[in-house]
């Protein structure tokens, strides 16, 4: 397997031509876009755009074909059984809200429990918290252990026949910890609970096979996977989707409307009210093609090696504390410098051309557990290499010099 060549790959990302010297280490928040996505979306608008599923004219049919082809690409990418299990949403946030608000009230009742991990992004925490408050369900938080890995034994002990849903991230957006989703699914299913996996950080960098994982719902945002912002995917097992009531209602999701009542379409259209993000879906398809062409095994190998290098390099900086991320981690590293606030680090790094994220990373429950206000977070993509890590380390050293001299 030929390793990725990040320097050559950068030529496919116009942002690098327009920002010479940029060290972009914030792909965990949103990845940069390859020219194939940017140009492909523009080309689609130029040639084939019209509303989907509406017109009898050829242009609308072509547009619909592109849109549905994107759905098939997403199905294949996830190795899902049925293309009708793929729902286009705005992103993972909308996907989780959809499940919490549609599946939730239908299948949980007062006295039930929903389990999340303490690593969750607010988007996989707050929708469940809201559901719990609305329905009278208890929200149970599964902890990470001292090494920063998901504590399977503690998780198992929290499960009971009352558990109806387990919602976990595949890869932590704060520490890069990879969660043992297969085992989580086995244990949850043994108690009759469903499992939703937030795949935002996993999709751009590792093979995801929803049938091998065994989960019930899987979701991701397109923009973290080199695609446009405003498009994402919710995958759900068809029998579950078919039993769920519509979430938002409007055009495109009905079979018949009279003044008295409305009959709704089958999934996925039942959950896609209104004109969807058509060009976003086209862009997402091109982004998934981009990933597949590089090869997810190669991307993972590249980013694993880079993560290892970064851990080694940053660990040698005095006063730098890396947040632990368990035994298996990928592409996301959080750290703090003793005595220097993350925002000050971020500003200094920015002046050195190094773009990182600082703050709580939408994971305040985890920050509270660790007793910190925030962290500095570096996250990697296919265009990053060791030089970027060296530039990061040099900028961190400069920051120390400035504040600790």
């Amino acid at each position, binding site marked *: 397997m030929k390793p990725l060549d990040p320097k050559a790959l950068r030529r496919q990302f116009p942002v690098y031509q327009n920002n010479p010297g940029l060290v972009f280490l914030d792909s965990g928040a949103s990845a940069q876009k390859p020219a194939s996505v940017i140009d492909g979306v523009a080309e689609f608008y130029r040639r084939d755009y019209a509303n989907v599923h509406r017109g009898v004219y050829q242009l609308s049919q072509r547009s619909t074909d592109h849109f549905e082809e994107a759905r098939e690409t997403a199905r294949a990418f996830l190795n899902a059984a049925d293309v009708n299990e793929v729902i286009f949403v705005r992103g993972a946030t909308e996907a989780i809200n959809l499940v919490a608000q549609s599946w939730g009230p239908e299948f949980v009742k007062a006295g039930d429990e929903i389990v999340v991990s303490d690593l969750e992004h607010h988007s996989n925490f707050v929708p469940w918290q809201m559901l719990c408050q609305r329905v009278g369900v208890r929200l149970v938080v599964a902890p990470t252990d001292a090494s920063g890995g998901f504590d399977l034994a503690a998780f198992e002990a929290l499960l009971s026949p009352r558990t109806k849903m387990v919602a976990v991230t595949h890869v932590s957006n704060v520490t890069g910890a990879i969660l043992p989703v297969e085992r989580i699914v086995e244990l949850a299913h043994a108690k009759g609970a469903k499992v939703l996996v937030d795949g935002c950080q996993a999709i751009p960098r590792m093979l995801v096979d929803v049938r091998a994982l065994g989960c019930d719902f899987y979701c991701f945002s397109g923009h973290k996977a080199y695609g446009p912002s405003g498009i994402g995917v919710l995958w759900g097992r068809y029998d579950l989707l078919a039993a769920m009531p519509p979430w938002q209602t409007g055009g495109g999701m009905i079979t018949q409307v009279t003044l008295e009542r409305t009959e709704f379409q089958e999934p996925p259209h039942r959950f896609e009210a209104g004109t969807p993000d058509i060009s976003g879906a086209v862009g997402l398809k091109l982004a998934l093609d981009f990933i597949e062409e590089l090869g997810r095994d190669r991307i993972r190998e590249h980013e694993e090696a880079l993560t290892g290098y970064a851990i080694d390099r940053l660990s040698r900086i005095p006063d730098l504390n890396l947040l632990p991320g368990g035994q298996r981690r990928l592409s996301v590293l959080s750290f703090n410098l003793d005595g220097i606030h993350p925002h*000050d680090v971020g500003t200094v790094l920015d*002046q050195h051309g190094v773009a990182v994220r600082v703050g709580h990373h939408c994971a*305040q429950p985890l920050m509270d557990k660790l007793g910190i*206000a925030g962290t500095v977070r570096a996250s990697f993509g296919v265009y990053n290499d060791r030089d970027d890590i060296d530039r990061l380390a040099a900028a961190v050293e400069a920051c120390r010099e*400035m504040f600790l001299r």
Partner: protein
Amino acid sequence: MIDLRDLYQDIILDHGRHPRNFRPIEHPTHTARGHNPLCGDRVTVYLALEGDKIADVSFEGRGCAISTAAASLMTEVLKGKTLAEARALFAQFHAKVTGGEVGDLPEALEEDSERLEPLTGVKAYPARVKCATLPWHAFEAALKGGAAEPVKTE
């Protein structure tokens, strides 16, 4: 490249590391909390008013070098001021860091205004302006009767 030392001047680093008046006031006449949801920073401002005069002012909390230094310098300049003077200082400081129209101050306040000058380097860093104004917003909220909810920067 903007020179970082315009932002992180020695006085900022000093007050960031060793904030003055970093303590609670046991029986404050006014208090309020400030919260920057972007970074999770929190500040609590305590006031002891005697009539129209700020007899004592202090703060507690956690924050970056900019917000800590801003709070520290704020407590230094506000002590002994009347409320009208305090408001005038804030209005001018706010205008300076946000690029608004800077009005004139009474001569008596000019020295205080100069004390705050090092903080105006945040102007070049739009993402950091809120760090410098957070303690002042908390001060203002305290005067308004100490809001039950913390004031937010956004």
